[in-house]
């Protein structure tokens, strides 16, 4: 069974600081998705990374897929209160193409 560990579980920082969220596994994934969820809403896809070593940027957010496709990170530069939310990673299982979900990182950016 493939597992995806996400860390930290909770992060509260001041506006303007940088942060990194990690998703790690001992298994290889075909691709990895990052979602953001705001209170009272469902998760919304931010990005999908497919190739080992791939880096994608979305404004102040930088997503990286590990070379071995076992891990991924989300780095936010100069965090803003609008970045507050629950960040979820989900890896595509090699065996059955289904998504394996991380437990989420609750991020709070204080003004």
């Amino acid at each position, binding site marked *: 069974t493939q597992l995806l560990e*996400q860390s930290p579980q909770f992060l509260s920082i001041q506006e303007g600081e940088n942060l990194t969220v990690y998703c790690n596994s001992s298994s290889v994934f*075909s*691709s990895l*998705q990052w979602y953001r969820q705001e209170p*009272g*809403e*469902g*998760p*919304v*896809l931010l990005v*999908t990374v497919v190739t080992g070593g791939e880096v994608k940027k979305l404004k102040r957010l930088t997503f990286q897929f590990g070379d071995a496709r076992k891990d991924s990170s989300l780095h936010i530069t100069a965090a803003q209160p609008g970045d507050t939310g*629950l960040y*979820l990673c989900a890896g*595509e*299982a090699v065996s059955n*193409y*289904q*998504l394996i*979900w*991380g*437990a*989420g990182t*609750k991020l709070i950016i204080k003004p």
Partner: protein
Amino acid sequence: GAGVSQSPSNKVTEKGKDVELRCDPISGHTALYWYRQSLGQGLEFLIYFQGNSAPDKSGLPSDRFSAERTGGSVSTLTIQRTQQEDSAVYLCASSFSGGAGEQYFGPGTRLTVT
């Protein structure tokens, strides 16, 4: 176009009662998922429908939980004899192609069992 819709948005029920939660996926999406999410936590997979294939029920926590999808569109998740531990947000998502394709989520149904 319209996104995924779920109803009701909130449901309070007494322990032991049955509840039905409804999901209207995006038109044309062949795949439909149900998840459960405890407060601020990650997603717990419940069940997956893909086209006319038999659903993947591997995530259903007990035989009190069941789901159906009629005509390849609307889905209903039924919880019988609800227990307090069933309290959570139930999220529905649909996907154009299933598998690891992008999932579009509804706003969820918050279920509270008293």
